[in-house]
């Protein structure tokens, strides 16, 4: 009987051995992921410690196998610091092994919230997926931009071009009149082809220019929301 057969027979027969197996994987892969995330973000341990509100020694311990017994709260705190999600999921042993085999600290990369278009703009994400499915080269190659309307910027916390007064107004609109005062939803054409200065409110600068010129549907929209 070879080593793998022995391992499998013991995993089937002994509960404690199964626990040791799971523990061993997590003891190694959680610290490795934390280190991978830090490397991916080009952070030093002191910098991360400051961001997470922890001591550098604790960060170092968390990135080393077996030095920290992670509880859920610690993992949540680290996930929040990096701006990524966290899944704790029961899976078959085969899936756990696959995870371990496919995992590489060097290649480990998790999209952070600020860049997570699928989360920030599900509509845009679905358009992108549809475009990919159709294999239209123009659509696949064109980058999908997040329409930076004041409202989306307030929701996402993205780098907005609004001044502070505009940001405050947008947030107030979200709180009190979310549906009626919000500008029209992003159109598919806007996402694919870019801003549409004539009718849509995606390009506020274009609307502002239209307002300055004093005519057109864009000018009306600008007056309505900038008031």
């Amino acid at each position, binding site marked *: 009987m070879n080593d793998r057969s022995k391992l499998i027979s013991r995993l089937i027969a002994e509960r*404690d*051995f199964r626990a*040791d*197996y799971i*523990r*061993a*994987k997590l*003891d*190694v*892969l959680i*610290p*490795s992921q934390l*280190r991978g995330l830090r*490397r991916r973000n080009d952070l030093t341990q002191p910098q991360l410690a400051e961001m997470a509100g922890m001591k550098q020694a604790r960060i170092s311990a968390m*990135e*080393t*196998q*077996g*030095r920290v017994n992670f509880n859920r709260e610690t993992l949540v705190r680290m996930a929040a610091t990096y701006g990524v999600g966290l899944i704790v999921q029961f899976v078959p042993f085969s899936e756990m092994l696959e995870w*371990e*085999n496919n*995992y*590489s*600290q*060097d290649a480990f990369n998790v999209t952070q919230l600020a860049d997570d278009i699928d989360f920030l703009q599900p509509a845009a994400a679905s358009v992108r997926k549809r475009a990919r499915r159709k294999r239209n080269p123009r659509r696949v190659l064109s980058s999908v931009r997040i329409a930076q309307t004041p409202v989306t910027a307030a929701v996402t916390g993205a780098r907005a071009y609004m001044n502070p007064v505009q940001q405050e107004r947008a947030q107030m609109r979200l709180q009190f009149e979310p549906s009626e005062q919000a500008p029209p939803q992003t159109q598919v054409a806007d996402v694919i082809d870019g801003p549409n200065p004539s009718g849509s409110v995606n390009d506020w600068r274009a609307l502002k220019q239209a307002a300055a010129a004093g005519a057109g549907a864009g000018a009306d929209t600008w007056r309505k929301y900038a008031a």
Partner: protein
Amino acid sequence: MPSRGNCLTNHKKVINFPSQAPPATWSFFDFGYSAESNPVEDWYQGQLSDRGRLTFDALLKDNQKIANPLNWQMSKKHMQGILKGHQIWQWTIRAEIPYRLLGIFGTGIKRAIFLIGYYHKGDSYTPSDALQTALNRKKLYEKGACVLHERSI
């Protein structure tokens, strides 16, 4: 800089290209005095607990894929005392107790060699001459008077 065949030339220096691409992953070897002797495997089978063995296997699998060994999960990159300056590093495998493993980088690309596994608490080492033995084995390796057994991962 002009290139000539399989090398770069710069004034009098000739820099040969590597004959083959570096391997994607690390290879780990156990030190052995002969083809039959493998003290590291004996330590692995005889001294480590189940959890220690499983953790060691998981560590090998993780570190194997990390190109820069500075990012390995190892406890000491430079040893002190009699091992100071000998470029021997230490892995700690934390299970019920912390097991330790001393190793060196081998000649060739992405090769690491385990010299000895041991356990210590305070000044008490098991085996008692673990550090000196590691040093002796390193010297034997440098002389080419040893056999390496590759660990399967």
